[in-house]
């Protein structure tokens, strides 16, 4: 398909230029400045459709301008009765057939990409070996995002780290209303539906960077504040990040005394909902790498002032309708400050958003992350007897595979 498309390259160049000139927003957010495979493919499709459509538009406008100028009744012109044309079969056939052809040109890559984006089978190496899949369980909640890395025992919220140059697979579900997961510069969006149906998609970042994600389906008052980040780091850094995250435990004690005090207060007042480390608790956002966050609550500047206001007011005015306002805690100023001090120590290691912006590229095949891969028989395609009963220790794992099979069946139909 790529070769077929390249024939249009000259025209593309023109259209791309036009698009770029018209100002495409910020590279971390704009779908017009793709930084991921999906966004790139969609961008090509967009350009193709724009070119086709511009062609149609130009034809229409040429006729239109000509007609309006030529046949406009001028001042003082004699009132005449024009010829009453009934129609013209040749012309009518022409403008039926040409659009059909143009649409077919667009329909072919549309169908192809639709299937490609829905395909969540493992990537293969040049030799045809299947690579390990990184699956992330995404949970959308009113107004934040939770992420669990399957088999890696890493949980985080608001910001996901992904390796560049590698497909990362998402399995998405919502705990309340419908949300939609959108990282415009990496990949198109996918709805996150409540219970019963896991939607799957994949991300493939081409460059390191901090990419901005948005919720694209109206989900309540703070719909517009449900932002998250996708932090694409090089594979080696990703491996390091996972290891760092795995080592975190909520028992880790901070150095300063006030922070220790804050930790105790945190344990008494916050741990019911929040978690530090790979806890399954996802009532509120997981705070394992809180101090490394780009933004507080996805949208606010990460500073102690904002954080104070958030804890003090439970985010009531900052994120209208957020569910933390029901939290029963009651803290005084000093206590809040102590908690803030503790929270600011929550930085598991060296890998943080900065590594994405300024880090050095470190290559890795990520095999270190999947040591038991051989025995587990995760991808049962090769080892037919790789039984799914054995590793059905997690319910989500099971349903995951079910829906995976389902979608495969479907694409066979």
């Amino acid at each position, binding site marked *: 398909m790529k070769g077929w498309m390249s024939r249009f390259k000259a025209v593309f160049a023109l259209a791309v230029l036009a698009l770029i000139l018209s100002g495409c927003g910020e590279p971390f957010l704009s779908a017009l400045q793709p930084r991921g495979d999906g966004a790139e493919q969609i961008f090509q499709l967009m350009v193709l459709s724009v070119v086709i459509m511009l062609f149609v538009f130009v034809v229409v406008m040429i006729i239109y301008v000509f007609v309006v100028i030529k046949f406009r009744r001028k001042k003082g012109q004699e009132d005449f009765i024009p010829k009453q044309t009934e129609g013209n079969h040749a012309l009518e056939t022409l403008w039926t057939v040409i659009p059909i052809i143009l649409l077919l040109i667009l329909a072919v890559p549309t169908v192809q990409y639709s299937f490609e984006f829905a395909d969540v089978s493992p990537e293969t190496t040049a030799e045809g070996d299947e690579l390990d899949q990184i699956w992330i369980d995404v949970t959308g909640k009113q107004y934040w995002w939770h992420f669990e890395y399957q088999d890696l025992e890493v949980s985080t919220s608001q910001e996901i780290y992904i390796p560049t140059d590698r497909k990362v697979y998402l399995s998405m579900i919502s705990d309340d209303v419908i949300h939609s997961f959108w990282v415009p510069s990496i990949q198109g969006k996918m709805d996150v539906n409540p219970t*019963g*149906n896991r939607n799957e998609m994949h991300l493939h970042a081409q460059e390191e960077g901090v990419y901005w994600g948005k919720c694209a389906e109206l989900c309540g008052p703070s719909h517009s504040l449900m932002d998250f980040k996708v932090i694409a780091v090089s594979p080696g850094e990703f491996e390091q990040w996972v290891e760092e995250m795995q080592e975190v435990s909520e028992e880790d004690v901070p150095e300063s005394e006030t922070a220790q005090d804050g930790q105790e207060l945190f344990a008494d007042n916050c741990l019911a909902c929040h978690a530090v480390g790979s806890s399954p608790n996802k009532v509120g956002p997981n705070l394992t790498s809180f101090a490394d966050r780009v933004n507080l609550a996805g949208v606010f500047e990460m500073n102690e002032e904002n954080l104070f206001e958030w804890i003090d007011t439970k985010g009531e005015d900052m994120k209208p309708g957020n569910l933390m306002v029901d939290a029963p805690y009651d803290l005084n100023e000093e206590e809040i400050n102590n908690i803030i001090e503790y929270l600011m120590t929550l930085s598991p290691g060296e890998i943080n958003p900065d590594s994405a912006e300024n880090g050095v590229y470190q290559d890795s095949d990520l095999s270190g992350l999947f040591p038991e891969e051989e025995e587990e028989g995760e991808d049962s395609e090769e080892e037919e007897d790789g039984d799914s009963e054995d590793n059905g220790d997690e319910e989500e794992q099971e349903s995951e595979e079910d829906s995976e099979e*389902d*979608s495969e069946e*479907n694409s066979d139909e």
Partner: protein
Amino acid sequence: MANHSNINDEKREFYKSRNKQEMKMQVYTFVMMIAFTLVAFGLVLAEVDAMFTIPIILVLAGVQVLFQLYYFMHMNTAGHEWPAAMIYSGIFAAALTVLALATIVWW
């Protein structure tokens, strides 16, 4: 309105006999419908294989509906072109709706 009562009487007789004919058809239709219903219930009660039963009972239901439409509701007589067109459009939209909700609500 009309004084030609003779002609009217003749006409009426003709209509009457035709209506009677039609009524006979409708009774036959009714008997068929009862028979179809018996078959449908019978298939299910006899616990015949579902893959076989379901298409059969759906077809039986479809035929019964056509009986109703064409014989009981007289869609087979003249002056029913628009009603037929609208009913079939309705069936078209209905079929799409049912198909969609029955199949792709999830995938």
